[in-house]
């Protein structure tokens, strides 16, 4: 745990060689990390594929912004409320959706999330502010803040007892919360509750025959992961007090599934790895443009350069989704347990290689190591 915390908190340092050491992307790493850790508790442990988690993310964001508007700019009540609200939503959704399993469960959660999304866009506009998204305004009441101080000039920013929650401090606050969230999920994984969830995944009928009522366990897992999503939504709003309905669209659920799968479902670190890979690609790859490509291939002859630029421009910039889709297909097809599994396989290959033939030349061992990566 200590090592993990150190690694997370020192991210601004070791991420800088990758060009990702600015607070915006670091915040995204940890916030979506919370989201993915939570999703992994449901999908990784129980095998229930939910397409509705984006709804919780959205609910969390809206609740947090409303808390900023009505209560206080302090993020503590905002985050607590958003976790609570999304928990309530998760109980309602889970109670109904968990009556079915397999693909039906996926469709039911999808239906719920789409309902939330459509309502947020149409009828609930007074609450969600529709397409524009919910924003802070100067005239908001902020009851608790008003008890202590007068309203200042301009828009107030979100704080944690006076510490601004944007930029690096925002990253550190989110990172601490993520480490706590990770610790909780670690405890869940190792608890008897987590074991029961794993048993449900491997064979639900057997669990029933053994006399377990699986429903409460599933519901608890669903609500916990929904609350994690709400927490992530609250943090998103805390670092940037804006909430839009597009966070609730089902493709957003697809994204978190993607992250979890990519890193490794059911593993502890996998989802975090997936988040970092995807958010990194999203930020770095999508910023690459034609000029960068031309300078990248500058050593090649002109005609080859043009061809290479034309080919690779399909995969970067606006087309980074294509890369994502291909990566996704590849991972699902060949590494169903995610990148972590790939690393593991590579590691095994290398270690077995060394143990079989310790006398072979180092040159071959090098190729083996490359293969492993």
């Amino acid at each position, binding site marked *: 745990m200590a090592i993990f915390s150190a690694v997370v908190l020192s991210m601004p340092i070791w991420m800088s060689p990758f060009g990702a050491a600015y607070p915006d992307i670091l915040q995204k790493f940890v916030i979506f990390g919370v989201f993915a850790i939570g999703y992994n508790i449901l999908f990784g442990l129980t*095998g229930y*594929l939910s397409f509705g988690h984006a709804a919780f993310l959205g609910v969390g964001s809206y609740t947090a912004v409303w808390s900023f508007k009505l209560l206080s700019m302090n993020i503590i009540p905002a985050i607590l409320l958003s976790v609570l609200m999304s928990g309530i939503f998760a109980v309602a959704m889970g109670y*109904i959706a968990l*009556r*079915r*399993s*397999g*693909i*039906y469960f*996926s*469709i*039911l959660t*999808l*239906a*719920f999330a*789409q*309902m939330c999304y*459509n*309502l947020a*866009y*149409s*009828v*609930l506009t007074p609450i969600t502010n529709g397409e524009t998204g919910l924003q802070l305004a100067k005239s908001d009441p902020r009851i608790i803040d008003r008890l202590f101080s007068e309203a200042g000039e301009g828009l107030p920013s979100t704080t944690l007892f006076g510490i601004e929650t944007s930029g690096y401090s925002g990253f550190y606050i989110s990172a601490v919360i993520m480490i706590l969230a990770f610790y909780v999920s670690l405890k869940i994984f190792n608890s008897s509750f987590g074991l029961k969830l794993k048993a449900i995944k491997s064979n639900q009928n057997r669990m029933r025959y053994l006399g377990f009522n699986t429903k409460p366990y599933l519901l608890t897992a669903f609500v916990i992961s929904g609350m994690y999503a709400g927490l992530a939504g609250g943090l998103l709003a805390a670092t940037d007090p804006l909430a839009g309905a597009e966070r609730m669209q*089902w*493709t957003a659920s*697809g994204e978190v*599934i*993607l992250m979890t*799968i990519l890193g490794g479902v059911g593993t502890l670190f996998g989802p975090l790895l997936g988040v970092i890979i995807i958010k990194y690609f999203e930020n770095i790859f999508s910023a690459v443009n034609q000029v960068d490509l031309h300078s990248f291939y500058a050593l090649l002859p002109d005609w080859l350069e043009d061809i290479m630029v034309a080919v690779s421009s*399909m995969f970067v910039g*606006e*087309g980074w*989704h*294509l890369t*994502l*889709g*291909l*990566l*996704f*297909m590849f991972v*699902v*097809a060949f590494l*169903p347990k995610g990148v972590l599994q790939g690393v593991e396989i590579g590691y095994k290959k290398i270690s077995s290689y060394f143990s079989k033939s310790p006398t072979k030349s180092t040159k071959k061992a090098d190729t083996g190591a490359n293969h492993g990566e």
Partner: protein
Amino acid sequence: MLFNLMDAILLQLLNGLDKGGAYALIALGLTLAFGTLGIVNFAHGALFMLGAFCAVTFNKLLTVSKSVKDESITFFDAYKEVPYLEIWWGDTGTAIIDYAVPLSILFAVPVMLLVGWALERGFIQYFYKRDHASQILFTFGMAIVIQEIIRHIFGANPIPTPAPDVVSGSANIGQYFGLGDNVVYPWWRLIYLGFSLCVISAVFAFLKFTTFGMVVRAGIQNREMVGMLGINIERRFTIVFSLSAVVAGVAGVMYAPIVPPDFHLGMDFLVLTFVVVVVGGMGSLPGAVAAGFLLGILQSFASMNEVKEIIPGIDQIIIYLVAVVVLLVRPRGLMGVKGVFEN
């Protein structure tokens, strides 16, 4: 007042049938893949979109142009783009261009057959034995890839693809029913409705009256048994998948004049179609069609102002609401087949 209501109801009924036609067509292809192959194909919406872009491509191919000196402007040299077809064949060429969308069905069928075949042989066949979650995720990735390729080629903006001139106007249906002149409805949408009915009947006839169809239906009921009887089920699966791609494709072709296709078209339809399939009952072809029309009609009635006044927002969620209720009350959907997708 009464007549106004009748008009509105008739209009919404047509709207619903029309929407339902599209849902039913896509859901039909999806169910074909479900029922026989056991594949949950999240790329099906992308195939629909691909069909619409077949129409766009065909339209573009027909209107490949050459700049010609514009004779009507005399005081300076003006050039205008004239399609080759018009230069070669004169009025016949213009007529062909006008009918680009219906004609592009001829173009779309082989293309979609090929695409379906390639996808099945290239990717899908390795996923028959994997669990549904990986199928969903893999085809989801595939859908993203198809979508992005289309965006790379055609750009992100919707491309208007006009219907033939003759049917681009509206039909005054009210007159036929003696309801006055208030009920007008675009011809092309009526044609779409008729077309979807034709395709649906064709698919059903194919499955009902041919030996191939019999084998496929047997495959839906019991896959292992059919294999054990010495039938090369693999090859038939490939054909069924191509068939489902073709159904989605032609549905997309004919839909192009109704909504100008953009690369996102497939995703918009995908979620709805999945709900339709689940409501109809997984693996049940009649169920998919019935649920498609039912949900289409419900959706358009829910978007009537009279209904919206009573329950605000109902038009946005009616489909999902129906899905939730149906799934909880009738676990197998409206016409679900026993033993398909049960765990």
